[in-house]
């Protein structure tokens, strides 16, 4: 996890493990976004953050969270969830090295009143999470799309139709 130390009200948090194949998708998307976002938001690469995402969200007004997802859909499927609209189902994100998965962490935050007013979650469906492997072609092929959709989200544009 890296943080600039500044507390920008808009944050983009990419969660994942760089050594675990497609599990790296969120972190790698955040890395690409860093150069594109400029000072419009704070971009955080959160390797294995789990419950710590709540700390990363503290005092933010809006957060876009990008994480690996595993729901059984084809690898590379992009999921979009609006955590601000209501409780999320835990079926999308695996119980994982993140300890409490992204949804668990968000729901814990909701229960304790720690959730920022607006939280959008992008889940990138994983294929191969074998230790030491690179991104699978299916996931590597959609990273640009994830980045574009997050940028649109950041601009408040409704270019996301949900998956």
């Amino acid at each position, binding site marked *: *996890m*890296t*943080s600039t130390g500044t507390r920008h009200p808009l944050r983009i948090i990419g969660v994942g*493990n*760089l*050594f*675990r194949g497609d599990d790296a998708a969120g972190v790698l998307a955040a890395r690409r976004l860093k150069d594109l976002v400029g000072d419009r938001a704070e971009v955080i690469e*959160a*390797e*294995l*953050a*789990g*419950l*710590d995402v*709540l*700390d990363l969200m503290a005092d933010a007004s809006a957060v876009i969270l990008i994480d690996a997802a*595993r729901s059984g859909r084809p690898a590379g499927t992009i999921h979009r969830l609006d955590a601000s609209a209501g409780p999320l189902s835990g079926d999308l994100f*695996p*119980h*994982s*090295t*993140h*300890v*409490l998965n992204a949804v*668990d962490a968000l*729901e*814990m935050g909701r*229960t*304790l*009143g*720690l959730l920022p007013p607006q939280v959008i979650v992008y889940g990138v469906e994983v294929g191969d*999470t*074998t*230790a*030491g492997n690179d991104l699978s072609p299916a996931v590597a092929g959609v990273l640009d799309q994830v980045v574009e959709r997050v940028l649109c989200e950041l601009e408040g544009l409704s270019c996301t139709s949900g998956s």
Partner: protein
Amino acid sequence: MSEAKKTKTRTIAVDMIARVEGEGALRVTVKDGVVQDVELRIFEPPRFFEAFLVGRHYDEVPDIVARICGICPVAYQMSAVHALEQIFAVRVEGALRDLRRMIYCGEWIESHTLHVYMLHAPDFLGYASAIAMAKDHPGILIRGLRLKKAGNALMTLLGGRSVHPISVKVGGFSRVPLRRELEGLKEELLWARDAAVETVRWVAGFDYPDFAQDYTFVALHPSDEYPFNEGPIQSSGGVNISAAEFEQHFREEQAPYSTALQCRLNGASYLVGPLARVNFNHDHLSPLGKQVLADTGLSLPLCNPFHAIIARSVEILYAIEETLRIIDSYEPPPCPSVPVTVRAGTGMACTEAPRGILYHRYRVDGDGLIREAKIVPPTSQNQRRIEEDLRAYMPRVLDLSNEQAALGCEKVIRCYDPCISCATHFLKLDILRDG
């Protein structure tokens, strides 16, 4: 949960054991009401990191091994740097040694608090998850999050960030904190000390099953301090060795049903982790820690795996007190690290990860390149012991519904806080009943 019947055999399949980190599966075979086999299968990435390290320069090792586990990166870093420093005949002492204890304290606070509050307490209070528990006990969960955050702050200050610290290096650190930076943590740590005392009292009030087991405990046992990075490896069976002798006594064996290796001490199972550490080292707790432990009414040695949540809570308190002690005596070292002269050789080290002793061995060539790496994590050491606990526990749950029996097994496994993420995701549970 799915249920299927094949002739006489009934299978319970739980998609995952929640709140256990990592990937694995548990298969229990029962015949005529008697447990036949208990197999805990861990799908460890087959020693990926050991292979990945070969050919790397020694100074890359701390950053690489930190990624083996998101919960205990400091443990991996500490075992690595101490093993490598043994090869290079480097001694890290004084304030640098204290800072290494302190960053380990940060990890224990983070890891233990996560387990106590978010993963284990729901078992005792009758909740399916910490989220469900938070609805009824928000104040307790907020206390847990704040306590964990005190550990995060230590890791961030000393390690450069709260997970995967980047400042640990062979010989010391890339940067050491200023005195005023450490002083800045004190106020919150003083709150955390009180919260840790409350935590011990809270968990000591849970109802515990009567389940004392005959364990062989293994932990580091220094003569003059609670262990983190140093000390002889001792067992309650009389073993007393240095890390260099580890592989003469502790052997890894491949279980046919698992890609992970199970480690045994002279052929038998043993237990590492908070219970073992407290049993060996309770004399090194602070006066407050000793008093709080005594107030629980438990007698030592602790032999009930369910009491591990109490041992973890006592260690949270110790880690906070030790951090405060180091802050009060801290004078920044003249250099953030001591010089290292590369030479070929083999080095071994064992440190106390939150879940128990973590052994590393490295062989380095004259250019400082890693030629061989061996890593024995605590979960692979406890794995056989978990199976034996489950075998002993199963008769208590055999008459329950499949779902309740599976839940009982999960609770036993969670006592160990298994970090199978040194493996990975999901844990599946199958109970095969024949007759």
